[in-house]
């Protein structure tokens, strides 16, 4: 399953819990992990790169708590996540078999995947930051939120890319790649760049 669900954010894993974890465990684990993270942040020398990293880690923990602690949200999240994983599998099977059903499945999958990632990454992480329990535990404020937009969009797209990597090619035929050959081509391109740069300077 590890391969098949990569990219579909798993808030249980983020808190180190099983999907049957009780709300009390969610709260306890969230608090513990948030405290650890805050200690780590206080000890670290903050660079731009680390700031982004810590902000994302904090947003992930906040969203994990926000989504899993509330029964309704938790149910909606886990149901949609499981449905998407199954839809991806159906589409991949249909595409492999060359079924006519593949294209409608692809469209449905694409639409639901984008909705899922937007709802359970950007929206959940921003909404979590406005929850009073979360504010109390993480000291998340409007300054965090302002900085987080760009980082969350990047994170959402990285997850999308992870999923895309294993999907059938749609807008281009599947390339046949030999990485030894690619390495040779890259070296040749570098040789050409060096020699044309030398020509230009001389």
């Amino acid at each position, binding site marked *: 399953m590890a391969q098949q669900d990569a990219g579909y954010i798993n808030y249980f894993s983020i808190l180190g819990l099983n999907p049957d974890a009780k709300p009390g465990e969610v709260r306890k684990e969230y608090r513990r992990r948030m405290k650890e993270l805050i200690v780590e942040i206080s000890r670290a020398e903050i660079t731009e790169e680390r700031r982004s990293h810590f902000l994302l880690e904090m947003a992930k923990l906040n969203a994990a708590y926000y989504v899993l602690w509330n029964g309704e949200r938790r149910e909606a999240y886990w149901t949609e996540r499981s449905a998407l994983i199954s839809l991806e599998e159906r589409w991949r099977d249909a595409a492999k078999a060359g079924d006519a059903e593949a294209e409608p499945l692809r469209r449905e999958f694409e639409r639901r995947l984008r909705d899922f990632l937007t709802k359970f990454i950007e929206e959940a992480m921003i909404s979590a930051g406005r929850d009073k329990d979360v504010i109390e535990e993480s000291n998340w404020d409007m300054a965090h939120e302002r900085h987080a937009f*760009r980082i969350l*969009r*990047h994170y959402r*797209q990285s997850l999308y890319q992870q999923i895309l990597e294993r999907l059938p*090619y749609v807008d*281009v*035929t599947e390339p046949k790649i030999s990485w030894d050959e690619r390495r040779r081509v890259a*070296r040749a391109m570098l040789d050409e760049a*060096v020699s044309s*740069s030398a020509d230009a300077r001389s």
Partner: protein
Amino acid sequence: MATNAHSTEDKAIDQDLLAKAIARAVIDGDIVNFRFIFTPLSPARQESPEAFEDRKYAYLQPDADMEADPGFREVLAMVKEPDTWRHILGELDARRPARLPAPLLLRLADQAVRGGKYTAAAQAYEQLRLRARMQQLFFDEARDALAAGDIPRAVAGYRIATGLEYNYAAFPEPLPVVPDYQRRALMMHGDYPERPEDSIPMQEPTTLLRTALEYLLLSPEAAAQIEQTADAPVRVEFLVQLVHAVDPQWPAFAERYRETCGLMRAYQERIEHAIAQRGQSRGLADEIEDTLGADPEQLPARLLGRELGKAEWWQYLKELASAHPPAALFVARQAIGAREIIVPRYRSDGPLPERLGLLPSP
């Protein structure tokens, strides 16, 4: 492949023109034209009311010199390869978004790298899902070259690798990172330097080196990698070659910079006095006018090589960064009365100004 028309009841398309247009887009590394040929509204589509042979689409065709080029002929043969050609015609006939032929798109991406069209290459590799690995190949080559002291190869490698970067946070869709130096230069000079030493060119030499690498390579990660791989003298040499690679017209700018420094030197003491007497800087404008006998705006105009009229400092900075991206590293904002201008500024104890030919003769 037959060279006569590929036709249906409704429309005939000259196959030879079509094949040459595709080959030209590939050899040029032109992903815009390549995609255009396959878009739903493309004149090469059966469903389009436009004629592919119309004169307004002549820009898609190669000229005689290109047609004679062996590289073009090789790509044309790739286009006309029976399986590929069958696929192309099938996609243009189908009433749905086309599936681009991967071998041609891959060649287009490679051609774009060769032509320095890194954003086009990044888009093509991204569509083929190869971008991150291709980028890593170039990073590896560049790092190895730097470690081996092969600076020209390291510069070329890092330029290509960072040119293939993608911005996944772009809204609404991910886009290649573009070399928008005019915007980055403005951000770099966003805060007015309260003290001269706060300005970008007056940073500690090692700090300026890092700033310059990040700014010119558009990548803090690449700058960090270079810092870890090479010691300071190698980084200076790397940066000098990078400046010339990014801006082939650098010597012309350096000459104007030296001239402007000559003007500045004439009233440097007065500027320093005025800075010390901040709040009374109206006097500085008078002094500059006395010294130059003209509007102080001529300083940025001389740096740029042309006047922009009554333009603000940031307009000059944007124009300068667009024409000579590295120039933004060697200028600073200077208030003169109610206005600001950009002036040349450098640390004479740093290695870069001398190596880049910016120091005026004594």
